[in-house]
């Protein structure tokens, strides 16, 4: 899956799961701010990515995934 395909797939999913406008999901936006993540909802993000792309984000890697651009790149580089 190309990065563009990942973006097309993941943005609407995250907008629906976290009940935010898709327009708020931009490459430079900070994920935890845009999705209003807390310690409980963080696991929802990991679950959505794991379920959709079969890409597991270990807790140790989460600090490196700050923006949506980071997330797209992470998914792209960890696809099976």
């Amino acid at each position: 899956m190309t990065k563009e395909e990942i973006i097309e797939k993941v943005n609407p999913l995250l907008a629906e799961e976290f009940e935010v406008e898709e327009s708020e999901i931009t490459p430079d936006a900070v994920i935890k701010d845009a999705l209003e993540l807390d310690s409980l909802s963080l696991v929802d993000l990991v679950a959505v990515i794991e379920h959709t792309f079969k890409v597991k984000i270990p807790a140790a890697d989460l600090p490196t995934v700050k923006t949506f651009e980071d997330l797209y790149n992470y998914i792209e580089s960890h696809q099976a």
Partner: protein
Amino acid sequence: MLYMDEQIFKLMPQRDPIVMVDAIYDAEGDTAHTGLTVTERNYFIEEDGRMAEPGLIEHIAQSASAFKGHLALLAGQPLPIGYIGEVKKFHCYLRPAVGDTLTTTVTLGAEVNGVTLMTGETRCGDTLVADTQMKIFVE
């Protein structure tokens, strides 16, 4: 059958009258099947002889907790204590009655910093009784 009745006490801290799991039938990978026979002594039984909906939530949460306890036991780790962090998409289709035997499938999902996303589905025979997603915090 992996555990039944008081053997469950090895896996979780709850005791009568709040024990809501009395069997783990099997466990493989991320999934376990648990059970509960509903008795008159059940804490969540209401005047009409049926279980209140929170009893089903507690049953599913304890099923996950017992499963986590089983995994800890296998790994030689201390017994974990689990708390319900959040209940999502809970549906109760039928309140079970005294004498019913519930069978529940719990599947553990993503885990971040001790918070585990899990799904649970409870049946009585072939009839779907309840399903939900939960976040459980385990320490």
